[in-house]
Every structure is written in C-alpha cells, then in structure tokens.
C-alpha cells in the first residue's frame, strides 16, 4: 500500500475515520482486508477499483447495508470524532444505526432503474425520510420535497411528486434518488457508482448536481466508481482498491497525475480516451456493402392510459440510411433514447420498420441482395445463420439454467447442423476462439465473470459462422480493463474471420477505437456521420461536439467544466443558425466534404 496523505493534521479531525476494516462472507477468507481511509467535511473521496475489488462492500459496510452472509470481522468507523459523543458505526445498535441512516449519512445506488420501489409514488418515497427522521407530517414533508425536487432539476416538481418510477427516465430517477439522499441534509453522502448506468451528458448533469449540492451544504461525499475520468474531475482524495486491499491512496492530483503503484498505472492505461488529434484519413467509397438500410422509419404506438383514450405515436427512428461495409465496423453512438438499439433490431429483422424503407443484405460480394424486411421462411433461416447479435448484459443474456455446452450448441441444434459429436467439438473450438478453456464446457454461466460471460455471448454468436455481428453495447456492462480485452477479442475475430460489425454504443472512446465509420444519432435521426478520426478531431455538429465534451478523461490537468457540459447540446432551437431546428424539423443530412455527413443547412 502506498499512502501519500499530505493533508492530515491534528487540528482538523476527519468527519469519518475508517481503520483496519475487514469483511468476509461466512467462514471464508476475508474479501476486505485492513482497509483504512478517512474523509474530511466538504471533501470528496473516491473509492476506485474494478468489480470484485470490494469497493461497493466497503462503502455499504458503513451503513451495514450488506448482503446477509457478509460479516464485519474487525475495524472501526469513527463518525464525527470531534463531537462530544463520536460514534463507531460498526458498534452501533441496529436501532441507533437507523437514526444515522438517511439522516446523517445517506446513500445513492448504482441502478436508478431498480433502486426505487416500482409501486410507490416518488414523492412519497422521498418524503418518507422526513417522516421517519424529522417527524414531519405528510403535508409539511411535501413542501420540502417539492423544494428539493426543484433544486435537483425537476421542471414540474408537483408532477414528479405524483409520478411512479417507471414514468421517468434513468437520469430523472437518479435525480429523484439524489433528492431522497439530500432531503435530510446529511453530513456524508455515499454514492455507489451513481452515474455508471447513465450516458455522458446525463452523467455530467448528475455529477454537477452532486458537486453543487456539496458546495451548498458542505457535506462530504464518498464516491465509489470504476471510472477514472469521473475521479479526475470530481474527487479531492482517491483510494485505489484491489481485491479488498488499498493499493494507493492520497490526493487526486498526485494519485491520478503521478501514480506510484503499478496497479494504478495499469488502470490508467486501460482507461479509454478519444484521440485528440490525428491525420484525418481520406474517405473511400463503399465498394462492397454487406448491409444497407435506406430510409428506415419506426413509429412506436404507446397505448393510452385509459381504455377509451387516444393512442400516442412516438417516432423512434426517422429516415435513417446507413451502409455497413464487408469486413468493417459501422458504429452508431447516441444517448439512451436516441433510437440506436431500435436500428440494430431493425437491421436484424427482429423489429419491423414502418413501411417504405428498405434493408438489403448481400450474402457475398456481387450477389443479389435479399430484402431483410420481407424474408420468406427459408430465407429467414439462412439470414439468421449469417447475422447474429451480441447483447449488452452478459448476466441476463445467458440462461442460468443451461450449461455452457448447451448454450453454445443450441444454435447448431436449431439449425440442424452436424451430429452431436460434431456440435460438441464445435463448442470446444468456439471456446478456444474466444480465449476460454475448453474444459469449461460443463459449467454454468454463474461460474464466470462478466468479461468471461461476454466472451461466451460472442462465442454463441459465432457458432453459426455468421458474416455480420450486431453488437448492442457489448462492453458497457464491463470493467475498463475487461472492456479493453473484449474489444481486442472483437477486433481479432473480425480480422481473422472477415466479420462485419454493426456496433451500437454510447461510449465514444470505445467507438473511437473499434469503428471504421461512426454515425451519431439524436432522437431517431443521424446528425453527423464520418470516419472516427474525422468525427472526433473535427466534429461539426453542435450535438456531436457536446457529446465529445462531456466525456470525462482521467487527466487531472484537464478538468472539465461540468456545469457547461451538463447543458449538453441544449435546445435544438438555440443551436447556431445553420444547424438549428426550424419548426419541428432539423436541416437535411448533407455531405459537407467527402465521407463527412452533417445535418446542416447547405
């Protein structure tokens, strides 16, 4: 462990001092060993590490919101030592701890989708904190909740109060969570990966909000994250964890700016970044397309709330045209709700597009294209062999009740390829292709880590020897260093087997690395499209610029003004005149220079 704490001195006692913390599951060897850290009032401490490093368990142990089997073996967590009666959080009775929870120390969790009860109105869930700790009545709590809702950025607090979680987007739910955590004005806020599930602009907004609230109330923040870009931009102190031990800790400027420990250096090296400058390459015409979408529209009709009310139509994809070249990677980036996953599903024929557009697929160069939207049964079967999908979440896209061998041979069985013995050999071969050992065939998915599972998903997608892979956010659920390995694997099999990718992601850095051509989608429309070195070094569209600006990099010398990037691209009516929305439509998508398409007035 390397500790370089320059701030600690006798007269400023920290708000929280954790010493020699060890936690284990049951009788097994501890998963957290001798962890020490401290945090001062008004300060932000980042707990950094990959999954399995114990950062989440560590921060949850402070309020003892732990899995049932987890036991705190030893350690003290002295909270507010300067007070007349400092408390050791690990020694408090369950009842006394309840008074601390949500009142003096509060928490925000990673999954805004699942961290709120689906059946209770958001306002009531937030107000509960006040009725529990402050003895407020329902009406007086509501006044404060509405005030807090306004502060965290709800335009219509009354409506938000009465809303149910499923009626809000991920970013809005996280705001509601923050309102809940802040309503009792805690002295310490513990944020467990609060922005990991959000896209870049929303992430910047949430970070800016937490920072702003911290300045107003002077609370301390423990920020748990695996994203060094976030750390570099918001943390004062950093504590790097690996396998339950502290590797390095100290002020952010030093730990991130000049890391001493090899592990920190490795983490920093794995952090993906958008290239800052490169020679823009010349655009080449597409000579050998494999998949082409032309004029694709998709309208979802959402049922009205009442049985007799009117249905509402939402246009998820508007007039999208794109061409994937054989052996290349075409990437679509965009925020959540931009319609990028819908395009992926349409490309595979899994979702049908509105009438009018066309999807063409060329099985080989110069062959006649098939129309993916109107396949007959036998054409569909052969198309399914050729085009496969890799999903985002490797934890839910593999059946937990099937052995790996069954998962990998299922596509072969469906399509009736080979004998059982051949299928088994094929499965073993696939495992080796994706860098796993073939004696793992009899295991179940739960025995694998996230990165290994994503390798399994890739192996499954490869089972039928496809030519086209549609990858829907294949690395978003993974740790940085694992992300890197999976990207390397994808690149390798693309080049080894001549695969073509349609790659969907919200992560610009990932796209910058793997793509040959990038399209930026905003609310169902492509606003800009170019080769990555052009797009990332000379973006033209204000929306693309805003997305790039919101990417946080692990570089303490280049802190980003969160306030500015949190605005995103703003209202399309306020964009520079050439790009601005006129009435309800954006300018046309035109080729400003060879290979660079922008939605701009000519």
């Amino acid at each position: 462990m390397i500790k370089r704490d320059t701030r600690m001195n006798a007269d400023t006692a920290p708000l929280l001092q954790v010493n020699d913390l060890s936690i284990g599951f049951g009788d097994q060897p501890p998963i957290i060993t001798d962890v020490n850290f401290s945090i001062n009032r008004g300060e932000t401490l980042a707990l950094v590490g990959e999954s399995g490093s114990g950062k989440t368990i560590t921060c949850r142990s402070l309020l003892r919101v732990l899995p049932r089997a987890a036991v705190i073996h030893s350690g003290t967590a002295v909270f507010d030592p300067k007070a007349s009666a400092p408390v050791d959080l690990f020694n408090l009775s369950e009842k006394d701890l309840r008074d601390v929870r949500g009142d003096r120390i509060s928490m925000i969790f990673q999954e805004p989708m699942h961290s709120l009860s689906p059946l209770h109105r958001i306002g009531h869930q937030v107000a509960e904190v006040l009725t529990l700790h402050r003895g407020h009545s329902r009406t007086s709590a509501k006044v404060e909740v509405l005030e807090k809702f306004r502060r965290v950025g709800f335009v219509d607090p009354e409506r938000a109060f009465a809303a149910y979680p499923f009626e809000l987007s991920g970013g809005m739910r996280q705001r509601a969570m923050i309102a809940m955590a802040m309503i009792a004005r805690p002295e310490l806020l513990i944020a467990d990966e609060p922005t990991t599930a959000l896209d870049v602009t929303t992430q910047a907004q949430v970070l800016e909000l937490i920072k702003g609230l911290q300045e107003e109330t002077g609370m301390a923040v423990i920020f748990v994250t695996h994203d060094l870009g976030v750390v570099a931009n918001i943390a004062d102190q950093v504590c790097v964890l690996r396998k339950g031990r502290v590797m390095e800790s100290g002020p952010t400027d030093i730990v991130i700016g000049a890391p001493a420990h090899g592990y920190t250096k490795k983490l920093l090296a794995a952090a993906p970044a958008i290239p800052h400058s490169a020679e823009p390459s010349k655009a080449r015409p597409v000579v050998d397309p494999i998949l082409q979408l032309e004029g694709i529209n998709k309208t979802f009709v959402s049922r009205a709330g009442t049985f007799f009310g009117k249905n509402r139509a939402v246009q998820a994809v508007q007039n999208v045209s794109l061409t994937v070249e054989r052996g290349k990677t075409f990437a679509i980036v965009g925020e959540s709700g931009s319609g990028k996953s819908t395009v992926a599903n349409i490309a595979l024929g899994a979702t049908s597009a509105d009438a009018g557009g066309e999807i063409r697929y060329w099985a080989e160069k110069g062959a006649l294209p098939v129309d993916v939207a109107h396949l007959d049964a036998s054409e569909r079967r052969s198309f399914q062999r050729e085009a496969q999908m890799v999903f985002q979440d490797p934890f839910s896209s593999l059946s937990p009740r099937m052995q790996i061998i069954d998962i990998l041979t299922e596509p072969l069985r469906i399509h009736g390829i080979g004998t059982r013995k051949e299928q088994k050999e094929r499965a073993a071969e696939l495992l080796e292709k994706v860098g796993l050992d073939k004696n793992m065939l009899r295991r179940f998915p739960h025995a694998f880590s996230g990165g290994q599972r994503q390798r399994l998903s890739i192996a499954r997608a490869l089972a039928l020897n496809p030519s086209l892979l549609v990858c829907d956010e294949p690395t978003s659920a993974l740790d940085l260093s694992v992300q890197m390995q999976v990207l390397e694997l994808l690149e390798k099999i693309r080049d080894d087997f001549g695969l073509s990718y349609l790659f969907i992601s919200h992560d610009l850095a990932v796209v910058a690395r793997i793509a040959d051509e990038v399209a930026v989608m905003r609310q169902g429309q492509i606003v800009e499209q170019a080769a990555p070195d052009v797009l990332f070094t000379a973006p033209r569209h204000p929306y693309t610029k805003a997305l790039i600006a919101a990417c946080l990099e692990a570089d303490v010398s280049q802190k980003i003004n969160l306030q500015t990037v949190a605005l995103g691209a703003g209202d399309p009516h306020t964009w520079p005149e050439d790009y601005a929305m006129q009435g309800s439509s954006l300018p046309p998508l035109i080729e400003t220079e060879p290979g660079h398409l922008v939605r701009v007035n000519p």
Partner: protein
Amino acid sequence: MLILRYSIYRFITMLATLVVVSALVFFIMNLPPGDYLSNLIAELRATGQADGISKVEFLRVEYSLDQPLWKQYLIWMGFWPGPHGFSGIIQGDFGWSFEFDRPVAEIVGGALWLTVLVNVAAVLFVYLVALPLGVLAAAKSKTWVDYTSAFVGYLGLATPNFLLALILFYYGHKYLNLPIGGLMAPEFEGQPMSPEKIKSVLLHLIIPTFVIGTSGAAAMMQRLRANLLDELSKPYVDTARAKGVPPVKAILKYPFRVSLNPLVADIGNLLPSLISGSVLVSVVLGLQTIGPALLTALKSQDQFLAGFILLFVAALTLVGTMISDVLLVLLDPRIRFGGRGK
C-alpha cells in the same frame, strides 16, 4: 374514476365470457350420444313398461328436447321462446332435474349458498394462513422458522384431503367436541336463519375449511416465500434500509407489496380448484354443497342440473378473476398506467 370505468368494462367482458362458457358447457354435455330421457325410454321399453313412455314423451316436448341442439341451448338460456314463452336461465328458470324429478332450483337452492360459504371461508383461510407464514418464512429464510413452515406446508400438500378430514373429525370430536359431518346440526335443516343456526353452521365450518384450504394455503405460502425472496434482493430494499426504515416496515411496505401481485392474480384460479377439489371432501364430510349433486348429475346425464351447476362454477371463477383484475389495477400503478409508461 378510471377504476370505475375499468370495472364496468371488466364486468361487460365477464358477461360476454359467461355466455361463451354457457354455450361450451351445453354443447360438451350433449356430445355423448343420447340424453337422460332417451335412455329412460329405452329402459322402459326394455322392461315393458310402455305406459310410462307417454309421460316421458310429454317431458321431452315440455323441455324442448325434440328441438335441434342450437335451439335447445337458446331455450335453456332463455334467449328463445320455449313451449311456455321465454323461460330460461336469465329469466330465473333453471330447468327440471330428471334424476331427482324436481326443479333444479329446488335441489341446488340451499346448497348454492352453502357452497359459496364453504369456499369463501376456505379462500379466506388460505390467505390468512399463507400470507403471514410466507412472509415469515422469507424474512427468516434458511432458519428453523423457514424449515418448520416448509415442513408443515409440504405435509399439508401431501396429505390426501379426505384422510385429513377423517383424522381431524376423530381428534376434533374427541378433544374439542367439534361436530362430525354436515354443515349444521340436523334440527336446523330447513329452518329459517336464527342466531343458533348461524352458530351451528360456523362450528360445522371449522373442519371443512381447514381440510379444503390446507393444500391451497401450503402452495400459496411457498409461492409467496419464493416471490418475496426474489424481491428482498432487489436494490430498492437496500434503498429503504439505507433510508433508516425499520426492518418490519421495510419488508411489508416495499417488497411484500410487489410480491403480492401473483397472489392476487390467483384469486380467480383458487375458486375453481377449491370447488372441484372439495367435491370429494363434501361427499366424505357429508356437506350439503352442490358437489355431490354435480357428481350424480354428470353420471346420469341429467343435463339441466349438471349444466346449471357447471355454469354456476364458471360464474364464480369469472367473478374471482374480475375481482383479482380490479384489485391488481388498484395495487399496481404499472398495470394502471400500462400505456403511459415508457
């Protein structure tokens, strides 16, 4: 307002379903060749009692059994005028039981309400037992509380109902002086309601309720335990704990409510399974429910009696489903605003 509209809408669809069910019941019952009366005629001919035949022929015309099947159905339901004008189920004329030689209404009259009573008591028993035990088993999962309740539950599932009935009768009578058989003391039968009669009925209800409800309660308890365990590991439970919500409230207010959905949806399924399951029990326990009558009617092709009972059971099921649907809408905003969500 929304709920009221939904309830009306559900009620209308329920009536429509009931009409379809009635048609199915009627035609399925008529699938086997012959009917009660033609069987009777054949029997009378074979035994040479030709004089009885004219009476049977009279009945055949009286109850329109000489008409084509679709017309018989319409007349039975009261959509079509029979020999005496519109007189069918919807007019309150349930037909004639040939087997008992009495109007159907007279045979099932008292039994109907006792059937409803026994089954509603059983449903209440199921929920009253299963909910607390299920929650307890989930909250204390993998402790002796959990194991004990699982053991008792499996015992309840595995013991045949009639056997349980006999055992309970024996010990209930021996130690608690509970009455054996029937749903009321014999002296109250056919008497108007009186406080003593109600008391007698309630005393007689104890064992049948227990017998009919046990397996349902055991199954539901296990289901609730599994549902609740799933919910207990959801992040919103951690959120509640991190807010400082006391443990009991943290279970009952959040995950318990979410895990209720499948149980509420079960109300509709519970009724028919209890009723069909209780036919045998009713015979063993000598309960004056419609179970034994249904058994006799089905065996002898006594079509109006069987048809009416089946229709009644279907109506109970549909009412149960309707109640559960409306409750679900009340309980779960995701269903209430199904169209409004993202």
